[in-house]
């Protein structure tokens, strides 16, 4: 296992692209904070899983993906959707259960999919999307298509049988898939150190004969570099890579989580010292890619986009009851 630690970008990215990523990270944060508030006010029903604090993994892993490339997402998937080019207005409309939502109000927070943008969808079953990503990679392999599939999953899912079956199958067939583990330290309440006996989730790659990479998931540059190398390897037909991005979710597991399994001090440490957006801002300022004012404008643009998304969602129509029976069969 090699540990990549560089402040330098391996792929070449334009300043505009980097500033765009900065805006995307704010959009992800604003989206989930907004959702958090709506749930608290009872404006949205059901449940939701927020990725505040994990913006760098989603944005970084998808930074270099085209619309042809695929991802599979998880229950904590709003960030993945935004990073893969999803529109926040259609996402928010989905959470409001409106016809203009990504799933016409039938899927909700946990099942946002945008096949045109290569988002194969969020899966509510932990680990459920991992074999599915292998199937997507199998299609690319058999049809000799150039796309790669990035499979997002959490530290918890790496204990599911489906993870091991899928990684093994992808390995033996050298499929173009990147297994991207967002290790946010907790599978619901279970701390990763209590639930696995390896130091890194990435260590498990050894069992399947594929590379395993550990990165700081709150450093978007590291995430971009690692994903770039893994996708390039996949496109070359050399098979999958297991990336583990260490990160932290600031919020609870879902909307009703008292977070008794961790301390306020731990949360404060991650917020104050390892905020992925703050770090990227410092990088951009240090590298002279953008000024403080420019970045503030970008941030405000993200806020603006979010506000418009909320307005769009709230003004969208509810589905008619006829919709209940449609879309069961193709």
């Amino acid at each position, binding site marked *: 296992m090699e540990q990549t630690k560089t402040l330098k970008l391996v792929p070449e990215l334009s300043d505009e692209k980097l500033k765009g990523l900065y805006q995307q990270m704010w959009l992800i944060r604003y989206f989930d904070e907004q959702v958090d508030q709506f749930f608290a006010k009872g404006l949205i029903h059901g449940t939701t899983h927020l990725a505040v604090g994990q913006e760098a993994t989603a944005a970084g892993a998808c930074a270099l993906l085209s619309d042809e490339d695929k991802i599979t997402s998880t229950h904590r998937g709003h960030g993945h959707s935004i990073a893969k080019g999803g529109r926040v207005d259609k996402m928010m409309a989905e959470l409001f259960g409106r016809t203009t939502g990504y799933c016409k109000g*039938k899927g909700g927070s946990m099942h946002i*999919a945008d*096949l045109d943008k290569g988002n*194969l969808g969020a899966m509510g079953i932990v680990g459920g999307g991992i*074999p*599915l990503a292998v199937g*997507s990679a199998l299609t690319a392999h058999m*049809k000799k298509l150039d796309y790669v599939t990035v499979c997002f999953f959490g530290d918890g899912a790496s204990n599911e049988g489906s993870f091991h079956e899928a990684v093994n199958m992808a390995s033996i067939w050298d499929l173009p898939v990147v297994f991207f583990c967002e290790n946010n330290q907790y599978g619901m309440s279970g701390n990763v150190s209590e639930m696995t006996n390896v130091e890194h989730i990435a260590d498990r790659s050894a069992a399947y004969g594929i590379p395993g990479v550990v990165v700081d998931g709150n450093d978007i540059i590291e995430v971009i570099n690692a994903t770039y190398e893994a996708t390039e390897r996949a496109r070359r037909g050399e098979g999958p890579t297991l990336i583990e991005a260490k990160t932290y979710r600031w919020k609870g597991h879902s909307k009703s989580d008292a977070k008794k399994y961790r301390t306020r001090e731990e949360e404060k440490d991650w917020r104050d010292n390892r905020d992925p957006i703050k770090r990227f801002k410092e990088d951009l300022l240090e590298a002279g890619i953008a000024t403080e004012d420019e970045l503030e404008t970008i941030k405000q643009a993200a806020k603006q986009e979010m506000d418009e998304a909320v307005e769009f969602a709230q003004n969208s129509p509810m589905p008619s009851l006829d919709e209940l029976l449609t879309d069961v069969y*193709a």
Partner: protein
Amino acid sequence: MREITYLEAVREAMSIEMRKNNDVFLMGEDIGVYGGAFGVSRGMIEEFGPERIRNTPISEAGIAGAAVGSALTGMRPIMELQFSDFITIALDQIVNQAAKLRYMYGGKGKVPMVVRTPSGSGTGAAAQHSQSLEAWVTHIPGLKVVQPSTAYDAKGLLKAAMDDDNPVIFYEHKLLYKTSSEVPEEEYSIPLGKADVKREGTDITIVATAIMVHKALEAAAELEKEGISVEVVDPRTLVPLDTETIIESVAKTGHLVVVHEAVKRGGFGGEIASMIAESEAFDYLDAPIKRLGGVETPIPYNPELEKAAIPQVPDIVNAVKETLTKKAVAK
């Protein structure tokens, strides 16, 4: 017309389709040079190669998930699940992903995959390799469920299943693999949701599935000697179910016996009986509906016990006579 076996009919349907459509491929355990646990894919790897006759690790959940993912992205996979009992391991992918993706996504995407799987008892394989669990999957909206009883039906129904844009669970009864019937060489499709009246009659309707179709036909022949005219209806597909044909038959005969190998409790026979009770055929029923199904035990190993665990021809004959008590006594 030439006769081929049920097993050959299944293989032929796949082969014809794979020659035409490169998106179709077969994936499963030991389906390569081994030819599959029951020999269904024997010879196929030689024709289509290991890419399309894709031998997998023993990973039912992984195979099922890979089938779902490839179907969602443009392939038309056929998954061979070595024994239908193993569906327990693959069910998350089949029930939570395959069946629901399209609906959850608001009508986007489709999952055109076929899960072919051998089911049923009679091979001495005991409790974990002999079950008939089809009722489980009929309960899941988004899935289609097929149970062919003859070689002819198997070929035509598999073609329809492969053409379908939805996940289809295709049950092949192990004891039927060696049975033969006339099967055209060319390609043909039997629409899903079309029952087949396997024998016409006027006194009583037997709705039977899979191997029980043959037992019902045997029983009907025996009952004919006593002047009882039995109509045997084979639904062929449980989802979608051809309620019209069944209702019509029951309205005609006024008597219904439902027979399946699966355990009677919670079996699909209950669904058929309920459907009739809710239908206009209810008013034509002239006796209580009778269900025959497996006894409420795991399938035992000992051959005599194994036989006793599922309905046999004399059971069907008796059930018919009990249902027709009056007539039987009168004649």
